[in-house]
């Protein structure tokens, strides 16, 4: 797509705007759909109806919500640190949106086809932590700072399992470029890294337990990184009121939520690219191609988004120390074992 656009427009800033726009459009549409899905899924689990009045089955309710948030007065607490307070939500969103640059949407489209794609996403999404800390600190509210400290500790702790799980997939595929990782897995469901990748059968079977574990941990750590239940301590409503975004209202509040939903898709998308073949079709050549690619990656990513919603409305929340315990004493040792095992099998 990049070459195609380049041949039409030539090397100008319009080219880069056009290349950067699709993820943003995707995020906005996807967030509306997910807000609605989340409400409907939770309502279904809880014997409720949820949105019913705005449009058939309330499909227009997310739009109405956005309109409401746009009209709301944008308050800044008198004691807040104003520049930081205003900057924080945008920084959080930038951290997430920047991650979408290296996330492939199809064999023909990726925001920026860089060699270290996977590594870049992990690195750039750390900016989110800075944003959350800023929000908590600038609010000048003790509950907010509690939430911010918790989220910083949590995201930093859970980035390690994410990165290690990513390494497992990278060791098998031999590339950090997500497009290459996906191309490696092309040719059907059995070639996905989660099932051992397109390797000889014996090697595949030996790899299977390690890849499955790594994949599972990648997903768990992803849920923790986006601060969703059971890891939603930074915004634990019953403890910290609303955590770092307690003092936010109107559009800034909405941007925090937009970033959270975008982040949900980002971690799901990365997991889908690394372990489930990204845009490649599960049926080999059947239903494959650049446009089908968009379909497949969105389906795969959205499946994990749905899983996160499902988990959120089922499980209680962990405590801070239990959260740290899970990361450092359970997930990380398992991943070291995975790394070792995968390395050993690949060398043999």
């Amino acid at each position: 797509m990049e070459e195609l656009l380049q041949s039409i427009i030539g090397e100008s800033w319009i080219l880069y705007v056009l290349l950067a726009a699709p993820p943003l459009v995707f995020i906005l549409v996807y967030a509306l759909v997910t807000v609605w899905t989340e409400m409907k899924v939770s309502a279904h689990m809880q014997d409720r109806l949820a949105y019913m009045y705005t449009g058939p089955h309330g499909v227009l309710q997310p739009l109405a919500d956005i309109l409401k948030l746009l009209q709301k007065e944008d308050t800044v607490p008198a004691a807040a640190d104003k520049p930081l307070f205003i900057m924080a939500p945008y920084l959080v969103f930038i951290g997430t949106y920047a991650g979408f640059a290296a996330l492939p949407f199809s064999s023909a489209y990726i925001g920026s086809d860089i060699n270290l794609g996977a590594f870049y996403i992990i690195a750039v999404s750390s900016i989110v932590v800075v944003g959350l800390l800023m929000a908590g600190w600038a609010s000048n509210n003790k509950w907010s700072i509690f939430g911010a400290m918790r989220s910083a500790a949590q995201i930093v702790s859970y980035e390690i399992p994410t990165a290690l799980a990513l390494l497992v997939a990278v060791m098998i595929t031999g590339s950090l470029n997500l497009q290459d990782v996906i191309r490696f897995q092309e040719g059907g469901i059995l070639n996905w890294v989660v099932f051992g990748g397109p390797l000889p059968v014996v090697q595949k079977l030996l790899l299977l337990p390690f890849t499955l574990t790594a994949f599972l941990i990648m997903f768990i750590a992803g849920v923790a990184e986006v601060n969703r239940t059971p890891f939603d301590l930074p915004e634990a409503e019953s403890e910290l009121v609303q955590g770092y975004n307690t003092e936010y209202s109107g559009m800034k509040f909405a941007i925090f939520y937009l970033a959270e939903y975008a982040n949900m898709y980002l971690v799901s998308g990365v997991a889908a690219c690394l372990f489930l073949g990204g845009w490649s079709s599960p049926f080999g050549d059947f239903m494959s191609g650049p446009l089908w690619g968009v379909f497949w990656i969105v389906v795969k990513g959205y499946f994990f988004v749905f899983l996160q919603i499902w988990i959120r409305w089922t499980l209680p929340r962990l405590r801070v120390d239990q959260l740290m315990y899970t990361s450092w004493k359970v997930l990380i040792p398992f991943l070291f074992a995975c790394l070792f095992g995968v390395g050993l099998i690949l060398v043999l």
Partner: protein
Amino acid sequence: MKESRTLPTDYVSSPERTSSGRTLRTDEMILNMGPQHPSTHGVLRLELVVDGEIIVDVIPHIGYLHRCFEKHAEHMTNYQQVIPYADRMDYLSSMCNDWAYALAVEKLLKLEIPERVQYIRLIMAELQRIASHLIAVGTYAIDMGAFTPFLWCFRDRERILDLFEMTCGARLLYNYIWVGGVSHDLPPRFVEKAKDFCRDFRKTLKEVHDVLTYNEIFIKRTANVGVLPKDVAINYACSGPMLRGSGVDWDLRRDDPYGIYDRFEWAVQIGKGEAGTVGDCWDRYMVRMREMEESTKLIEQAVASIPEGNVQSAIPKRIRPEAGEVYVRSESPRGELGFYVISDGTASPYRVKARAPAFVNLSVLPEISRGAMVADLVAIAGSVDIVLGEVDR
């Protein structure tokens, strides 16, 4: 209106002013939890002294919902007029409050209660106990971050409220149990509907057990947290599920019987420490879950054998008990609810004192939450199951 952000003059920043050399000065933080906080279950204000996430001390501040119940009671023109005020004490178990007050006045009057009234009162009190425990369990789930069981609990509570509504027209504050009887007889089809409810309710209990009680995360959050040992529970005069959760086998329905509880088959449930230590949050939660089952049994038995008859005994409109005093206690969903009533022979009580279980249970909160984490405090406060209407009266 620009807020100045300069440091206060006594701020310790230079090395020579710190007491312990060049080390970074850390301090305890005072954190105000409530009165507007999602987990204080009303307008309780907790002053927390925290060291990071660890709680050093908790100081409850109460009184935001004080409505002078006792003074109001003295200024009524009639003993019956106190009942709507008693409704509003513990607004989640109005039936039990009414009954406790009615018991006290009836004891002053030395009144015999018609048989059918006894049955109706027991059915209502046990339905109310289930409704109240459903809120306790449901909001506890929310405190732990699980939203879904909360709505399941409320769904079933709605059905109890429907039963109450068809009986007396009100859904929260009933003014139903009067001195000498009840305000209305049971409506037709009440008995079948109550039976239907009992049958369906067991399924809900099982669902909640599946999704919450034996959930690994829930157990991790509540087992061995906020342990209230037997002796401390007794010393603080805790009662109700608080006391039974600590393994003390004490239930006024059995040990100081009132009504007709002695005629039915049911058991007092105590905490056994299956998930952790006896007296932890999980035990208190579990006692409530099991009590709901026992209440279901009681309702089923009472509904099956309810006799026909009057629902009001013949008493004058303005009661004038002989001068004297009386203390009557009963087991409300939160514990020992007592009414101390002094009569001077006139038509209104000379003094009414309520012994509110939630108030007494709350007093043990600082004792069991020191050294816990902020998240644990939410778990502990939730397991005490306070209703601020009763704490403050």
